[in-house]
């Protein structure tokens, strides 16, 4: 193994998982927010009016904009907190998967109608 490839291998082995974990958990949060706000806008006339930020598209415009902003903010915050750190991935990825699964369920109209 050459000196340069040995150095690259050492660097990759030492790379922390914090920033990856931040991206994964925040994606779960963003996805969950889509489902949560979709239900909120559907059930509450007040939230429906608040999320109607672009009239031709209706409440969908606000629901998705707010969810995307929260996703990006959570990504930034978690990335700053966890950069250059190794975190316990199992609970983080499990939580991300649960949030992702819930987002599919919450956006499904028959389930959203339960609330």
């Amino acid at each position, binding site marked *: 193994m050459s000196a340069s490839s040995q150095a690259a291998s050492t660097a990759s082995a030492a790379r922390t998982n914090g920033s990856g974990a931040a991206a994964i958990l925040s994606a779960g949060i963003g996805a969950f927010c*889509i489902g949560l706000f979709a239900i909120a806008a559907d059930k509450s006339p007040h939230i429906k009016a608040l999320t109607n930020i672009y009239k*031709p*598209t209706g409440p*969908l415009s606000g629901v*998705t904009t707010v969810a995307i902003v929260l996703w990006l903010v959570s990504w930034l915050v978690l990335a700053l907190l966890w950069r250059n750190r190794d975190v316990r991935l199992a609970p983080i990825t499990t939580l991300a*998967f649960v949030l992702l699964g819930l987002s599919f369920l919450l*956006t499904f109209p028959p389930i959203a109608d339960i609330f």
Partner: protein
Amino acid sequence: MEITLRGLWTLIHGMGFGALYLLACSGAAVELFRLTSSATPTATPAQERFLRLYLLTMVVLAWFAVLTGAYIVYPWYRAVPPPGTADLAMFPQRLLLSSPATSGWHSLGMEWKEHVAWLAPISITMVAAVFLQYGHDLRQHRALRTAALTFTLASFLAAGIAGFFGAMINKHAPVDGGHVIQLSQGETR
């Protein structure tokens, strides 16, 4: 042969961005699995560069698909007809809701599609960001790799649901109208 402006935008949204994204999903999942597997030899810089570019292209396709859908096509779909309008052809949502045989395409199909579609760009953006940062070193981070692959499949599922309902809704109540674009002059027989 002609197409209306609304029809063209629906085509760009569904076939241009959406269908191309769906086609790309299987390639992304396979390449991500292969290049980050500990069972395969280390990826060459060219292979890694290719997958980075591939994933970035998917990110662009996914965002363009949802943004053109939500801000160009959807307003035409949900347009409210003036009171007393009998012909609902230009108002797809109202056309679907006007019959019990088609109302489910809106109340289940569009209601799910308009929200679930956004899970695709969120998921694939994360996957691209993780691969851009870690590359084939993901093989040393098994949990990150599993999460990236899971979100890639979730993104495919979300895009598939949106694509299926989009196609079916457009079949029953096409988004049409606006300026007519002449594509070619046919012969009369």
